[in-house]
């Protein structure tokens, strides 16, 4: 037996050596390429120098009276570009989307229902302020094939003086000096994108929460990428554009996982030095940790109650503001709630979304209608935890047809059924639905809705990223609502914990009893001899 043991020694020694090598190599740092942050910084802080000076072109040395004349001058040199613009979402206000269970639908501002002003269609004169075109009175009558109505200037203005007029169907405000603007054109800056995208919903930061006028000149604390005291990146640095097709999409109006801007595109999917953090990227989106709060500078709208709209004082509409100047009631729209420095809510998201389309029947009117359900779950290998702003609204509903109701809101003058002129619910609903060719029962009630806005901007400096313990904690975890998986620190099996605790208690009691008896016996012995 001893002899056999001796023969076994070299074999066992070899096995032990292999195990030791395996452990040591597991401990050794892995060959992770260095994070390309330094290269990225270098690349994106280079100044963009325009290759031409438009103010020198003879075609632009003239007075422009109508904006369409500017567009003609643009197309005169940039021939073919107008075709690209007319093929873009900014122009078409819709795009082809495949939605599971529904097939191919055309989705966009033309036909969408939302939980802000409910719908653009029917209110084009006002809403077309954010259309890259002129003269949109109605999506039904607008000529989407006339390139002269393309608004080149809103995106390419270099003076930051160009502005679209109120309720003018997308035309520039009368005060704009078209010649000066035309001579200044160049690569779009934060100003160009911001004039529309920061004011969606009719005011600063109303819609997104992470895109607002503080982003024109943000500090590093607000947004590390666009910071004027940092990389000073422009929107189009990430939203790269080819043939006027701008990368990036918003899931209030998108369904498919395509043409997205991703953090990983520049930063790779393993950007951390710490492997444990890199492993998180399988299930956690970059945004989840790196956008700890949004609406950092100005408040964003979080709740809207349409049902209180239409109250008048002395027969006139009125407004109320909170201490910070946010409108909390207006007769035109109802009651609002706002939030600043908000913690996002979190959802599983695989890059696809489903949509409530106007006319869809609501199955259960007692539950909030989700206007854009973001798909995903823990079990879905494509899904990651994403931060979202959830917009909650109480909005108009047809309890008989069980559909949401889009109101006719804006009209130039009273008597056309527009709620904002006449304050008559039923008439505004009737006209609004009729303009879309949808039935309306004549009854109106209100229903809760939710819309999910994935957060991508206002990326914080890395020191401000969400700490481990903000999710890995029993109480108040940021992801407390995501229950379909186990994470350490937050989750446990109450059964295992209870059994374990009793095991320890009984062990201690047993030991104490045994020790106590021993002590007692020893004392008795000593006394009794």
């Amino acid at each position: 037996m001893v002899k056999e043991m001796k023969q076994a020694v070299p074999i066992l020694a070899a096995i032990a050596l292999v195990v030791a090598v395996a452990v040591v190599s597991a401990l050794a740092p892995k060959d992770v390429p260095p994070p390309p942050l330094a290269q990225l910084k270098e690349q994106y802080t280079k100044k963009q120098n325009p290759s031409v000076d438009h103010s020198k072109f003879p075609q632009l040395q003239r007075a422009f009276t109508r904006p369409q004349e500017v567009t003609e001058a643009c197309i005169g040199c940039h021939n073919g570009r107008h075709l690209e613009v007319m093929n873009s979402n900014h122009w078409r206000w819709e795009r082809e989307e495949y939605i599971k269970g529904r097939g191919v639908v055309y989705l966009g501002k033309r036909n969408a229902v939302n939980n802000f002003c409910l719908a653009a269609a029917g209110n084009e004169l006002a809403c077309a302020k954010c259309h890259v075109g002129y003269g949109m009175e109605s999506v039904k009558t607008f000529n989407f094939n006339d390139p002269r109505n393309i608004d080149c200037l809103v995106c390419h203005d270099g003076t930051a003086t160009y502005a679209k007029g109120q309720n003018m169907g997308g035309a520039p405000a009368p005060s704009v000096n078209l010649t000066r603007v035309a001579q200044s054109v160049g690569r779009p800056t934060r100003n160009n994108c911001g004039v529309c995208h920061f004011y969606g919903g009719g005011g600063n930061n109303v819609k997104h929460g992470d895109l607002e006028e503080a982003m024109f000149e943000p500090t590093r604390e607000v947004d590390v990428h666009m910071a004027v005291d940092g990389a000073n990146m422009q929107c189009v640095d990430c939203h790269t554009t080819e043939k006027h097709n701008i990368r990036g999409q918003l899931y209030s109006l998108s369904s498919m996982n395509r043409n997205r801007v991703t953090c990983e595109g520049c930063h790779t999917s393993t950007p951390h030095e710490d492997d444990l953090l890199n492993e998180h990227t399988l299930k956690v989106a970059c945004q989840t940790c790196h956008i700890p709060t949004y609406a950092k500078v100005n408040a964003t709208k979080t709740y809207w109650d349409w049902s209180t709209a239409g109250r008048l004082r002395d027969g006139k509409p009125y407004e109320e503001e909170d201490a910070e100047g946010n409108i909390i009631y207006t007769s035109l729209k109802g009651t609002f709630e706002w939030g600043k420095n908000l913690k996002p809510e979190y959802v599983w998201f695989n890059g696809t979304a489903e949509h409530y389309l106007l006319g869809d029947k609501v199955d259960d009117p007692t539950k909030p209608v989700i206007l854009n359900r973001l798909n995903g779950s823990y079990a879905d290998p494509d899904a990651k935890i994403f931060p979202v702003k959830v917009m909650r609204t109480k909005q108009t509903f047809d309890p008989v047809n069980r559909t949401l109701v889009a109101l006719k809101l804006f009209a130039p003058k009273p008597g056309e059924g527009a709620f904002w002129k006449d304050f008559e619910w039923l008439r505004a609903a009737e006209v609004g639905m009729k303009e879309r060719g949808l039935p309306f029962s004549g009854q109106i009630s209100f229903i809760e809705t939710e819309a999910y806005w994935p957060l991508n901007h206002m990326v914080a400096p890395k020191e401000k990223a969400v700490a481990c313990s903000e999710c890995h904690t029993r109480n108040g975890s940021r992801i407390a609502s995501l229950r379909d998986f186990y994470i350490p620190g937050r989750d446990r099996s109450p059964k295992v914990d209870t059994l374990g605790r009793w095991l320890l208690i009984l062990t201690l009691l047993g030991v104490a009893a045994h020790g106590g008896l021993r002590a007692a016996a020893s004392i008795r012995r000593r006394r009794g001899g």
Partner: protein
Amino acid sequence: MKRKRVPIYTGFERFWHWTQAILILFLAFTGFEIHGSYTFFGFEEAVRYHSVAAYLLLALIVFAIFWHFTTGEWQQYVPTLKNIRAQLDYYLFGIFRNAPHPTRKSVLSKLNPLQRITYFSLKVFLIPLAVVSGLLYMFYRYPTRYGIEAINIGSLKFIALAHTVGAFLLVAFVILHVYMTTTGETVFSNLRAMITGYEESEEPATLSSMEGQQA
């Protein structure tokens, strides 16, 4: 009766024992913080320390396994039923009557039959449970990362629960183990032996010796 100094534990054994003791206590402390039972280091630091201690323990286990097989010490842990009755009787009754230990400790046989069974279970079931579930805890993502779908582990839940069960059992073992060290010749004689390597005793009459069992 004359006092006798009996060598029991070698230098490596004592190093191994105490290092393992410290690591297991530290792992339990940081582990239950990760579990969410309390906050001391903070989650991030607790995870970091827990991982470092885990690697150290793994390295120690590798050395210990090597030592056990090269020295033949592994045979000390082969369970036996011989004298187990006497040993149980001692802990349940004899110890209160100041009866002598039924088995005697020597360098060739330092474990009584109950200890053999306990440590055998510890080494063959409990520590592997903690180590394997711990390794899976750390590396269960790797199959996914390298795209090997077939060995993909879908959820951390069962790994974590197994690890928690192992932790509770280990802590219970530690409590029991620490108490049992007081059942030697005197309350501290076992502890002293694990520190100095020698057990000092007044030579009693030998009831039984395990030496005969050695191969």
